[in-house]
């Protein structure tokens, strides 16, 4: 609960000694309440008051770390419910589910499939970072051998296991990788919390409903364990959405610290076997407050949209992603190679340069200064026009490149005449609308001897 200046003032020594730099204890208290000063600036605060105040002024949602080395991830630590208020800090992470009920062949095939989706999108590595290893109650040995296999991938493990013996044995073989033990509930939490604490890993807690979840978290916090994530999965899609949203909202908006932890949403439970529904929910829970989302399969069909969405949702709303304007010679292009021009929006650059590279045709990619906006946005804003393009070419390109042919994006085909009149000596070639059509287009140009 946030404290007012008056409430804080009541806890100060009221000496008005000015050592904190404030004229009075009251003035100091007001500053602390606004978050402008830290309580530790007063040397005379009692231990008791310090403890109370640092609790009250702590961030609403804890930051929890899992995994090790290159596979260490930060979960939680969010301060806002909407991305336009402030940047979201911890990306949603995805876990593919495995189960001790699966045959060895099934498990091997799934791990093999999971390896295939691992790629780069605008400088960010995209893959399911975690594996969810579910215990079906069919023998500790079987579970341990599955966990061993999963741990060998180097991915962060989430152990879905409510059985203390199995959990203990599994932790023995994987605790060094800092997994999550997702297994505490209202009836076993003492034992589970002890196991997690001893192994030094994060504990996952679930509840039959949101009230039970709240009570169990409180009970575990009383045991002194605050290294937690909350499994907000319930019996149905509707209840899971309700719990996931209310947990996040209670912690950030209503400062309910008990719910100030990251979440796990398990689609393999609420949409089992329904790949399309899992795709829909993957998107829904990436938007609304899943810190870890568990799903049965992360193929390219799932990955391409959801990683694009995640990259969008977790970018800084204040900073457009830009690349430096200039000439980028591709595929061994030199001064005699043809030019192709587009805007300096990072996504556009990434898509266009990717396709050009795939075409293998030497080309000078000329990136204009267009304010970091997409082709049509910058065109509509007057930042990608006949004027701006011809000026950029005159100042930066004409003395460096001998070719006098330039390819422009199909979405601004209307600029052809304008550029040609303002950039004497140049021939403007209009390309297709989408970057994906570039490979064929470039190869055709080459075949027709137009380069």
């Amino acid at each position, binding site marked *: 609960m946030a404290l007012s200046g008056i409430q804080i003032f009541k806890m100060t020594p009221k000496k008005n000694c000015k050592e904190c730099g404030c004229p009075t204890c009251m003035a100091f208290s007001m500053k602390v309440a606004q978050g402008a000063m830290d309580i530790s600036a007063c040397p005379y605060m009692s231990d008791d008051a310090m403890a109370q105040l640092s609790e009250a002024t702590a961030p609403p949602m804890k930051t929890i770390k899992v995994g090790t080395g290159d596979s260490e991830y930060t979960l939680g630590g969010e301060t806002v419910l909407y991305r336009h208020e402030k940047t979201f800090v911890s990306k949603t992470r995805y876990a593919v589910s495995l189960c001790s009920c699966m045959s060895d062949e099934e498990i091997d095939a799934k791990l093999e499939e999971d390896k295939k989706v691992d790629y780069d999108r605008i400088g960010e590595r995209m893959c399911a970072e975690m594996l969810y290893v579910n215990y079906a109650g069919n023998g500790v040995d079987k579970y341990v051998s599955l966990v061993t296999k999963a741990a060998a991938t180097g991915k962060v493990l989430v152990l879905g296991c409510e059985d203390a013996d199995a959990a203990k044995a599994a932790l023995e073989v994987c605790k060094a990788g800092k997994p999550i033990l997702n297994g505490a509930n209202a009836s076993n939490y003492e034992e589970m919390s002890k196991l997690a604490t001893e192994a030094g890993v994060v504990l996952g807690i679930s509840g039959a409903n949101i009230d039970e979840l709240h009570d169990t978290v409180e009970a575990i916090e009383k045991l002194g364990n605050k290294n937690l994530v909350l499994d907000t999965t319930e019996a149905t899609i509707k209840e899971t959405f309700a719990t996931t949203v209310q947990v996040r909202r209670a912690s950030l908006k209503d400062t309910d610290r*008990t719910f100030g932890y990251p979440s796990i949403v398990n689609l393999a439970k609420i949409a089992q076997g329904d790949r399309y*529904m899992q795709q*829909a929910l993957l998107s829904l829970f990436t938007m609304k407050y899943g810190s870890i989302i568990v799903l049965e399969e992360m193929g*390219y*069909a799932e990955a*391409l*949209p959801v990683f694009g969405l995640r990259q*969008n949702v977790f970018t800084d709303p204040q900073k457009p992603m830009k690349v430096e304007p200039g000439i980028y010679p591709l595929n061994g292009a030199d001064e005699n190679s043809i030019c192709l021009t587009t805007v300096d929006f990072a*996504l556009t650059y990434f898509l266009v340069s990717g396709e050009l590279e795939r075409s293998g045709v030497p080309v000078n990619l000329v990136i204009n200064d267009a304010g970091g906006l997409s082709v049509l946005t910058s065109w509509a804003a007057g930042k990608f026009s006949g004027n701006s393009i011809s000026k950029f070419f005159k100042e930066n390109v004409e003395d460096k490149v001998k070719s006098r042919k330039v390819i422009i994006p199909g979405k601004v085909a209307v600029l052809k005449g304008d550029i040609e009149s303002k950039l004497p000596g140049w021939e403007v070639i209009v390309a297709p609308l989408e970057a*994906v059509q570039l490979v064929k287009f470039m190869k055709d140009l080459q075949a027709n001897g137009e380069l």
Partner: protein
Amino acid sequence: MPFNRKPQKFNAAIKSVVIGSGDKTVTLGGENVLPFYAFDGEIKNGPKVGVEITDLGMEGEPESVKAYYEGAATMGEIAKKAAAMEGADFLCLRLAGGDPNGLNKSVEELIETVKEVADAVDVPLVVEGCKNVEKDSELLTKVAEVLQGRNVLVMSAREEDYKAVGAAAGLAYNQKVGAESAVDINLAKQLNVVMTQLGVSADSIVMNVGSAAVGYGYEYVVSTLDRIKAAALSQDDKMLQMPIITPIASETWNVKEAMATEEESPEWGNQEVRGVSMEIQTAAASLASGSDAVILKHPQSVATISKMIQELM
């Protein structure tokens, strides 16, 4: 301490706009809680799902979409099949062929298609133009006229052509008007303001505040939708309380994830499954941020999204 529920109760609501006529109508909007926050209060009308067809028939459609429409030879037959799709609440006819930079079909020709489709089905109809402002001013005015009595949603009136389209659809022929703006809360509001000043009733407007495929500048779409819903509900901003409709199919099927063939990107696997996932995930994200209706085209996406909505109600 037990969990203390603090439902977000608003003293404002999104307007309900009915489209369609007779006993086949559908209500867009009407909610007074955030998207799918049924735990805060009852949601009277869930979001709705529309099926898009275009005057180009099956040309350029993915194989699987063609397969669904197999046997439908005329636009009327295509429309019937679209209307019968599992999970469909309304039909959206997009007059893509009118684009002067494309096929440049004449207004007369397109109006024939509009009539054929309207005669074939009795479900609620949305008619979208060709995106070219000059052409749409004439085309959509005519659409509003020939569909009198059907209470259709005419998309779209923009900053540049709202006087023509808004006046015809909203005033002269008593249809519903789609107000289209470019991913910006202020532009969306401004358009509603000038449209109501023109005399169009605020209860006859549905907003298309812009869309994109996920991964393609979609962060702006999310924030625009989030901010509009917040202003409408928590600040009771009357000029942003119109329900929101978001075309999804026309954005998602043109991006590389859906367009690259298996030959071009072998590691990506089945092209159709990718396209469907792109459509499903973009639709789910738009609904999560506050779209009251989405327009899709693949039968699998329509079925899945409509099921997701039912599950969340």
